[in-house]
């Protein structure tokens, strides 16, 4: 009962799991976001110190890196159809899940951009790894900078809420519904891909 039987192996299989690239990007970005989010939360209340300046730079470099990875991931996602959800999932849940995913993708693109903009407006250019200067999109404007900081923070809390929902849903599927939804995205977990899986 606790492991799902593989899908019937007759018809060409759309796959029951995400492919290696999709899984890799998902977890890479997840870890990077968790790290960058925590660092952002921690560093903003620190008193000014060399350490704080370093943290800010690292946070910005992480943001640029996440943004670039998300772009790659979006291209991959749009060119590779994800595995079907199990038939047991009702339509409304599919809609909620799809909406959550769209919002998460949107925030993963928008949040780094708001960080970049707030940095510009506050008069601190972003120099990727201390080497590659990103153009300042805005001229210095302290008031605008503060407002963008609020937007950056709010969007992050919004994303945190969505991530909690996303994670909660995944765990619910695995431990309560005992279906294969989580296993689609976790390597070495439970169900094996059918032999026709090429994703």
């Amino acid at each position: 009962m606790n492991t799902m039987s593989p899908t019937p192996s007759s018809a060409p299989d759309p796959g029951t799991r995400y492919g290696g690239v999709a899984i890799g990007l998902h977890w890479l970005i997840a870890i990077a976001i968790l790290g960058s989010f925590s660092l952002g939360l921690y560093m903003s209340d620190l008193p000014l110190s060399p350490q704080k300046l370093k943290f800010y730079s690292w946070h910005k470099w992480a943001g640029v890196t996440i943004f670039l990875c998300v772009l790659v991931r979006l291209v991959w996602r749009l060119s590779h159809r994800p595995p079907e959800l199990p038939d047991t999932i009702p339509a409304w849940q599919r809609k909620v899940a799809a909406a959550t995913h769209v919002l998460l993708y949107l925030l993963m693109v928008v949040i780094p951009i708001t960080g970049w903009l707030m940095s510009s407006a506050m008069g601190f250019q972003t120099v990727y790894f201390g080497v590659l200067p990103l153009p300042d999109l805005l001229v210095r404007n302290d008031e605008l900078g503060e407002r963008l900081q609020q937007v950056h923070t709010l969007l992050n809390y919004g994303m945190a809420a969505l991530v909690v929902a996303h994670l909660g849903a995944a765990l619910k599927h695995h431990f309560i519904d005992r279906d294969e939804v989580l296993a689609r995205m976790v390597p070495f977990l439970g169900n094996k891909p059918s032999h026709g899986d090429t994703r």
Partner: protein
Amino acid sequence: MNYAFSALLLGVLVSATTTANAIEFNQVQTEKSALTFVSKQMSVPVEGRFRSFRGRLAFDPAKPAAASAELEIDLVSIDAGSKDANDELAGKAWFNTKVFPVAKFVLTSVKPLGDNRFEVAGRMTIKGRTQDLTAPVTLRQEGNSATLEGSLVLKRADYAIGEGMWADFGTVANEVQVRYRLVATAAAK
């Protein structure tokens, strides 16, 4: 066309010499002048400026050897990009403005380099430490008004600006690009 050009050049030279001979710039126009700097934090150039400074100047471009000047900068007027940074810079590790509120530059000599460029030497005092300094200056003259501007690289460690945890140049670089623009008019004698 060559003749026209020569005539024009001659005219410019003559007028430049005649005005230069007669004029001494000695009224510093503080509101038209500016003192800005660019520091590097984690390799990121960050602009700042001093809002409040005053100067005394007596400068006749034709007699640079006779020039005299003094510049006083209110260090607490620093704007380094954020309130956090400004508060930090007023503190003991940086400018220690309670003890050393003013930075002072006293001119000692002016060397003409030709083409309206000069090399200004003087003594700079910040935070109780005095260093010899040379600064390139370009003169732009418009009638009664002169603009003297240039930039130099100041090493913050020479003046103990940024001590303790800030002494490491890894986060805030030692070199600070300082840009100055001094506008002065000639008073009627």
